[in-house]
C-alpha cells in the first residue's frame, strides 16, 4: 500500500506517463497523416492515368478514324480490294476502340461525343460505306463525290477537330493536375513543419515544468541547508507533495530538527558549565568575604566577649582583656593556670561530668553559669566552649567564649516574677468571667446557687460555706451537715437576718469544733464570714456565709466579696425577673393552648411565630413550640387543605398585608368526608402604633353550619309536608263552598278533608313529639319491665287485624329491662304498623326475641316491599320515607323511625334496619338487660345445651296474652324455644313449616275456629299427626268426651306452670313423640 502510494506520488512515474502518452499521440497522428497523404497521391495518379488513358484512347480513335478515311479514300481512289479489306479491319478496330471508349468513365460531353461517333459509325458502316462501295463498284464518282459532299466528310472533320481539341484539353488538364499536385505537396510540407514546431514547443514546456518542480524545492533545501549550517532557525513549511522531493524534505526537516535539538542540548550543557564556573567564582568570593567577616567578627567578639584558649588539659594559653575585666584576674594571672581558677558557683558534680562528657566527644557546650570573680562576687556568664580537633580527631585545644549576662539575668528574674503575678491575675479574671458568665446565663436558681458556692470556694478557699436565696429558701451548701442547714433555716434564720439587716457583713471568730479541728493537736480558731446580697430597696435577697479554719479574712478579701455581692444582687434580680417572665409566658401559652379556638400569630413578613394546639388539631398540622414557619410553607398547607383555595389565599394575603388595618373574616371548609367548616378572622396586631403582625383566630363551626343547614332543610321539608294536606283541606273546602254537587260527592270530599286534616294533626303531633325529644325536654319514666310481656301486649292489639297475622318467636331467657314502658310500646306499635303497612301483599309479620350478652334483641320481620340499599341509612332521619311510588302510596309522616331511634337511644339501646328490596325488611332494636351477670351464666348453660342438641321448639296457641306469657316464661326457663300463635289456622300453617316437639293448645280460641278444630286439623294431616299436643284449657266434662282417647295430657286452667313444663320435659325425654295428646295429671289449684 505504502509503496503503491509512493509510486503514485513519484515524479519519475508522473513524467514517464506524460511522455509515453505524448509519444503515442505523435506516432498515431504521424501515421494518420502519412496514410492520408498516400491516399491523396494515389487518387491523383489514378485520375491522371484515367485522363491519360482517355486521351490515348481518343488519339487512337482519331488515328483509327483517320485510318478508316484513309483506307476509304484509298479504296475509292484505287478501288483496291486490299484497301477495302484494310478498311474493314480499320472499321473493326474503330468499333473496338469505340467500345473501349464507351467503357471509360465519361463526362456528359464525352458521352454526347461518343453517341455522335457511334451514330456516325453506324451511319457510315451501314449506309455511307456500302453506298460508297456500291458507287465505287459502279464507279459513279459523281454520286460518290456528292455523297462525300453530303456532309459525312464534314462530320468526320468535326470529329477530328474535336479529337484534336480534346487532346489539347486533356493535356492542359494534365498540366493543371501536375500543378495542383505540387501545391498540395507544398501544403503538406507546411503542415508537417507546423506540427513539428508545436511538438517542440510542448517538449520545451514539459522540460521547463520538470525543471521548475525539481529545482524550486532543491533551491529551498539548499537555502535551508545554508541556514542550518549558519545555525539559524529553519523556516521550512512542510511540503504538500508526497513525492521523492517531499519525502526528502521531510527527512531533511527531521534531520535538521534533531540536529537543532542536539545543538540546544549542547548549548544548555554549556550554559550549565558556565553557571557552575560562575558559582565557583562566587563561592570563592564569598569565602574571601566570610574570611574577612570572620576576622571582623573576631574583632567584635574580642571587644564584646571574653575569649580564652585552653589546652586539652584545660590550661589557659590565651585570654583577652574582657576575660580579665569580667573575672578581675589579670591576663598574667590567668594564662598558664587551669580553668579551675574560675570557681563555678552553684554547680554539681554531675553537671560538671556532663559538660566534660559533651566536650570530650567533640561537642560544643554552651550554657549560663555563675562564676565567682576574684573579688568573690558571683556573676552570671554565658559560656560557650568549643573543642578543636586535630587531623586525628583528637582534641588539642578549647576555645572559651563568655559574656557577662548578670544584668540580663536579673531582669529575667524580675520578668518571671511579673509573669507569675500576671498569670494569677489572669486566673482571677477568668474566674470572675466564669462567675459573670454563670450568673448571667444560669436561669435555674438551684444551679445558680451551686455554681456560686463553687466559685467562692475556688476563690477564697473556704472550708465550708452556705448560700441561701431568702425568698425561695433555696440553699446551697458545702462542707456543712444538712441538719445544721435546717437548724439555720428553721430557727435562727430570723435572728440571722435580723443581725444582717443592720450589719451587711460581719465576721465571727470562734473556737473550732472537734470535727473542724481534725487531727490538729492545738486549739484552732474558726472564722465565719457572713454577708448579704441586697437589692436597691435594701431588701435582703440572699445570704452567704463561709468559714475558714485557722485562717482569717483580710480586709481586701472582705471588700472584694462585698463588691461581688453587688453583682450577685443584680444577677438574682434578673433571675427573679426571668422567672416572672417565664411564668407569664407559660401562663399565656397555657391559656392560648386551652382555648377552643385555633389561634395563630403571623408577623408582618408572613412568618408564623405561634399557633396553638387547637389549631394544630383543627388543621392537622405539626408544630413544635418555638419554630418559625415561613409564609409560603404554612400558607400553602392551609390553602391546600381548604376547599376554597383562591378565596382563602386572597384572605391571607390581604390580612397579612401591612396596609390592612381592620380585622376581617371569612368562612371556609376543609376536607370532604367529613367536611369541617371553619370561620377564621384576622386581627392586625399593633405595638405602640407599629404593626407587628396579624392574629388569626379559627373557629370550628362545623356543628353550627350543619345545624343551620339542617334547620333550613327541616323548615323547607316541614313546610312542604304541611302544605300538601293543607292543599287538600283548603282545596276541597273551596270546592264544596263554590260548587254545587251531589251529596255523595260532598260526603266524599268531607271524608277526604277529614282524613287529610287528621294526617296534618298526626304530622304536627309527631313533629312536636320529636322536637320535644330532641331538645331533651321529654321525660322518661323508667321502670322494671319484662320486654316479652310488652311485646306480647302490643301484638295482642293486632289480634283482630284482618290482613296480617303477627307471630312471636320468643327465645329470650332474660327479658328484664329498665325502660319507659309507654315509649317502648310506642316504638313497637310504630314498627309493627310500619311492617304491616309496607308488606301489603303478605299476611304475616314475625317478631323475634333473643338474648345477646348483656342485651335483648327484638326483631320485627316482614316480607314486604323492602328498602333500596342506598336509602336504608337515611331512614332514621326526619321526613325520610322510602322514595318510590309504591311506598308513597302507603303514606306516613316520615317521622316514625326518627322517633323510634330517639326513644331507643335515650334508653341506651341501638336500632337498625336490614332489608333486601323486594324481599322484606327487618327492623331490630336492642336494649340492655338487667342482671346481665346472672343471665350470662344462664347463657353459658344454654349454650352448653344448645351444643348437645338444638333447642326443642314448642308452639303455644293461646289468645290470652298474659297466660301465654306465663307459659312461655316457664318453658323458656326449661330451655325450650317458644313460638306464640293466637290463630288456629296460622298455627296449623306454622306447624307444617316448623318441626315442633309439642304444641300447647288452648281450646277456647277465636270465633271461627277453636282449639278443637286445630287439634283435629293437626291430627288429620299426616305431616303433623305425630306431634304431641298438650291441651291447656278450662275444660268441662262434655269436652272431655271429645278427647276420644287421643289426648295424652290435659291441663286444667288455672294450673301451675311447672306442671306444663314438666309434662313437656317428659315428652322430650322419652321421645315418645308419636302423636300423643296429653292432659294434666294434677288438678291442683294455684
Amino acid at each position: 500500500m505504502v509503496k503503491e502510494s509512493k509510486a503514485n506520488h513519484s515524479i519519475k512515474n508522473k513524467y514517464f506517463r506524460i511522455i509515453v502518452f505524448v509519444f503515442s499521440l505523435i506516432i498515431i497522428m504521424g501515421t494518420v497523416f502519412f496514410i492520408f497523404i498516400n491516399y491523396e497521391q494515389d487518387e491523383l495518379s489514378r485520375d491522371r492515368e484515367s485522363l491519360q488513358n482517355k486521351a490515348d484512347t481518343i488519339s487512337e480513335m482519331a488515328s483509327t478514324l483517320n485510318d478508316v478515311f484513309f483506307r476509304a479514300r484509298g479504296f475509292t481512289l484505287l478501288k483496291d480490294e486490299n484497301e477495302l479489306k484494310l478498311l474493314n479491319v480499320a472499321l473493326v478496330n474503330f468499333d473496338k476502340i469505340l467500345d473501349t471508349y464507351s467503357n471509360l468513365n465519361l463526362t456528359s460531353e464525352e458521352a454526347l461525343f461518343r453517341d455522335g461517333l457511334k451514330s456516325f459509325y453506324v451511319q457510315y458502316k451501314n449506309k455511307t460505306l456500302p453506298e460508297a462501295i456500291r458507287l465505287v463498284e459502279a464507279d459513279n464518282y459523281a454520286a460518290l463525290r456528292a455523297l462525300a459532299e453530303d456532309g459525312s466528310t464534314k462530320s468526320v472533320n468535326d470529329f477530328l477537330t474535336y479529337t484534336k481539341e480534346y487532346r489539347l484539353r486533356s493535356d492542359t488538364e494534365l498540366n493543371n493536375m501536375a500543378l495542383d499536385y505540387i501545391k498540395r505537396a507544398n501544403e503538406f510540407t507546411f503542415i508537417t513543419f507546423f506540427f513539428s514546431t508545436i511538438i517542440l514547443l510542448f517538449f520545451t514546456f514539459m522540460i521547463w515544468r520538470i525543471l521548475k518542480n525539481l529545482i524550486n524545492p532543491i533551491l529551498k533545501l539548499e537555502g535551508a541547508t545554508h541556514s542550518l549550517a549558519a545555525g539559524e532557525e529553519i523556516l521550512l513549511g512542510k511540503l504538500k507533495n508526497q513525492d521523492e522531493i517531499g519525502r526528502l524534505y521531510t527527512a531533511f526537516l527531521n534531520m535538521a530538527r534533531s540536529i537543532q535539538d542536539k545543538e540546544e542540548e549542547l548549548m544548555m550543557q554549556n550554559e550549565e558549565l558556565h553557571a557552575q564556573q560562575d558559582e565557583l567564582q562566587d563561592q570563592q568570593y564569598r569565602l574571601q568575604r566570610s574570611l574577612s567577616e570572620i576576622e571582623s567578627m573576631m574583632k567584635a567578639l574580642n571587644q564584646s566577649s571574653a575569649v580564652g584558649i585552653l589546652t586539652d588539659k584545660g590550661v589557659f594559653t590565651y585570654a583577652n582583656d574582657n576575660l580579665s575585666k569580667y573575672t578581675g584576674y589579670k591576663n598574667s594571672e590567668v594564662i598558664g593556670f587551669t580553668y579551675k581558677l574560675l570557681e563555678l558557683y552553684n554547680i554539681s558534680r554531675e553537671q560538671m561530668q556532663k559538660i566534660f562528657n559533651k566536650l570530650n566527644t567533640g561537642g560544643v557546650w554552651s550554657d549560663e553559669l555563675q562564676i565567682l570573680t576574684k573579688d568573690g562576687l558571683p556573676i552570671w556568664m554565658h559560656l560557650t566552649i568549643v573543642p578543636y580537633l586535630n587531623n586525628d580527631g583528637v582534641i588539642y585545644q578549647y576555645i572559651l567564649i563568655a559574656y557577662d549576662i548578670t544584668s540580663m539575668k536579673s531582669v529575667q528574674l524580675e520578668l518571671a516574677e511579673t509573669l507569675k503575678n500576671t498569670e494569677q491575675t489572669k486566673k482571677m479574671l477568668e474566674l470572675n468571667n466564669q462567675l459573670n458568665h454563670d450568673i448571667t446565663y444560669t436561669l435555674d436558681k438551684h444551679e445558680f446557687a451551686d455554681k456560686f458556692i463553687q466559685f467562692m470556694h475556688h476563690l477564697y478557699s473556704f472550708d465550708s460555706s452556705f448560700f441561701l436565696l431568702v425568698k425561695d429558701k433555696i440553699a446551697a451548701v458545702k462542707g456543712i451537715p444538712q441538719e445544721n442547714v435546717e437548724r439555720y433555716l428553721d430557727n435562727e434564720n430570723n435572728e440571722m437576718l435580723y443581725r444582717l439587716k443592720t450589719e451587711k457583713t460581719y465576721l465571727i471568730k470562734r473556737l473550732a469544733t472537734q470535727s473542724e479541728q481534725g487531727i490538729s493537736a492545738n486549739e484552732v480558731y474558726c472564722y465565719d464570714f457572713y454577708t448579704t446580697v441586697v437589692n436597691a430597696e435594701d431588701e435582703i435577697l440572699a445570704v452567704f456565709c463561709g468559714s475558714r479554719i485557722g485562717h482569717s479574712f483580710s480586709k481586701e478579701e472582705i471588700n472584694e466579696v462585698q463588691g461581688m455581692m453587688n453583682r450577685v444582687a443584680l444577677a438574682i434580680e434578673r433571675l427573679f425577673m426571668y422567672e416572672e417572665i417565664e411564668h407569664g409566658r407559660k401562663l399565656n401559652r397555657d391559656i392560648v393552648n386551652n382555648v377552643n379556638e385555633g389561634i395563630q400569630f403571623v408577623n408582618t413578613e408572613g412568618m408564623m411565630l405561634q399557633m396553638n394546639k387547637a389549631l394544630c388539631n383543627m388543621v392537622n398540622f405539626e408544630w413544635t413550640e418555638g419554630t418559625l414557619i415561613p409564609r409560603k410553607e404554612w400558607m400553602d398547607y392551609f390553602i391546600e387543605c381548604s376547599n376554597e383555595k383562591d378565596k382563602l389565599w386572597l384572605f391571607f394575603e390581604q390580612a397579612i398585608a401591612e396596609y390592612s388595618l381592620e380585622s376581617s373574616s371569612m368562612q371556609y371548609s376543609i376536607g370532604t368526608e367529613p367536611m369541617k367548616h371553619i370561620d377564621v378572622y384576622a386581627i392586625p396586631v399593633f405595638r405602640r402604633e407599629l404593626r407587628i403582625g396579624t392574629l388569626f383566630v379559627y373557629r370550628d363551626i362545623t356543628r353550627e353550619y350543619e345545624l343551620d343547614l339542617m334547620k333550613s332543610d327541616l323548615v323547607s321539608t316541614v313546610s312542604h309536608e304541611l302544605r300538601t294536606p293543607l292543599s287538600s283541606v283548603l282545596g276541597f273546602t273551596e270546592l264544596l263552598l263554590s260548587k254545587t254537587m251531589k251529596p255523595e260527592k260532598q260526603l266524599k270530599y268531607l271524608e277526604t278533608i277529614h282524613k287529610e286534616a287528621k294526617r296534618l294533626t298526626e304530622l304536627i303531633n309527631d313533629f312536636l313529639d320529636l322536637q320535644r325529644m330532641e331538645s331533651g325536654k321529654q321525660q322518661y319514666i323508667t321502670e322494671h319491665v319484662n320486654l316479652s310481656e310488652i311485646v306480647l301486649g302490643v301484638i295482642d292489639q293486632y289480634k283482630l287485624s284482618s290482613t296480617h297475622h303477627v307471630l312471636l318467636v320468643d327465645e329470650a331467657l332474660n327479658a328484664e329491662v329498665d325502660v319507659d314502658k309507654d315509649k317502648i310500646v310506642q316504638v313497637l306499635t310504630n314498627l309493627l304498623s310500619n311492617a304491616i303497612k309496607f308488606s301489603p301483599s303478605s299476611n304475616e309479620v314475625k317478631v323475634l326475641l333473643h338474648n345477646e350478652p348483656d342485651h335483648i334483641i327484638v326483631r320485627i320481620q316482614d316480607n314486604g316491599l323492602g328498602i333500596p340499599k342506598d336509602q336504608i341509612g337515611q331512614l332514621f332521619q326526619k321526613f325520610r320515607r322510602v322514595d318510590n311510588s309504591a311506598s308513597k302510596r302507603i303514606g306516613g309522616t316520615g317521622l316514625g323511625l326518627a322517633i323510634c331511634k330517639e326513644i331507643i337511644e335515650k334508653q341506651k339501646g341501638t336500632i337498625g334496619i336490614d332489608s333486601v328490596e323486594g324481599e322484606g325488611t327487618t327492623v331490630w332494636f336492642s336494649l340492655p338487660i338487667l342482671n346481665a351477670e346472672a343471665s350470662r351464666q344462664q347463657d353459658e348453660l344454654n349454650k352448653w345445651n344448645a351444643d348437645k342438641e338444638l333447642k326443642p321448639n314448642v308452639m303455644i296457641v293461646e289468645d290470652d296474652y298474659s297466660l301465654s306469657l306465663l307459659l312461655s316464661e316457664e318453658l323458656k326457663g326449661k330451655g325450650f324455644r317458644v313460638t306464640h300463635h293466637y290463630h288456629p289456622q296460622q298455627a296449623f300453617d306454622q306447624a307444617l313449616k316448623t318441626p315442633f316437639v309439642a304444641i300447647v293448645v288452648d281450646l277456647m280460641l277465636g270465633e271461627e275456629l277453636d282449639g278443637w278444630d286445630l287439634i283435629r286439623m293437626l291430627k288429620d294431616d299426616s305431616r303433623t299427626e305425630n306431634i304431641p299436643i298438650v291441651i291447656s284449657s278450662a275444660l268441662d266434662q262434655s269436652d272431655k268426651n271429645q278427647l276420644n282417647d287421643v289426648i295424652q295430657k290435659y291441663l286444667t286452667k288455672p294450673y301451675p306452670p311447672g306442671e306444663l313444663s314438666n309434662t313437656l320435659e317428659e315428652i322430650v325425654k322419652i321421645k315418645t313423640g308419636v302423636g300423643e295428646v296429653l292432659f294434666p295429671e294434677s288438678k291442683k289449684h294455684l
Partner: protein
Amino acid sequence: MQKIMVVDDEEVLRMLIEDTLEDLENVEIHTAENGLEALTKLSADHFDLVILDYMMPEMTGIEVLQQLDEEKKSTTAILMLTAKAQDVDRIRAVEAGARYFMPKPFSPMELLQIVEGILSGEGK
C-alpha cells in the same frame, strides 16, 4: 278538544285538580302520578297544558322539565304547582321552562281561572 295533564304523586291532589277543572268545556284531563309517567305520556301525545307538581319521589318536577325537549316546552304551557314556594324555587322553575307558577296550598277557583286563561290563549 284541548288536553291537560295533571302530574302529582298525591292521589288526593290529583282528584282535587281534576274535580276543579272538570267543568271546563272541550277539555280532556289526563293524570300521571310520577315524572316518568308524565314524560312517557308527553312524548306520545300533545298536551296544551301540564300542571306539574314540584316535589315528587324519584323525579322532581324540575327534572321532568329538564328532560323535556325545547320544542315540547314551546308548544306546551307548563304550570308548576309546588309546596316549595320560596323565590329561589320560583326562579328555578322558570329557568327550567315553567311558564306559570302556583304555590301550594292553592285556591281551586284561582287555578280554574288561570287554566281558563291559559287555554283561551291569554299570555301566550
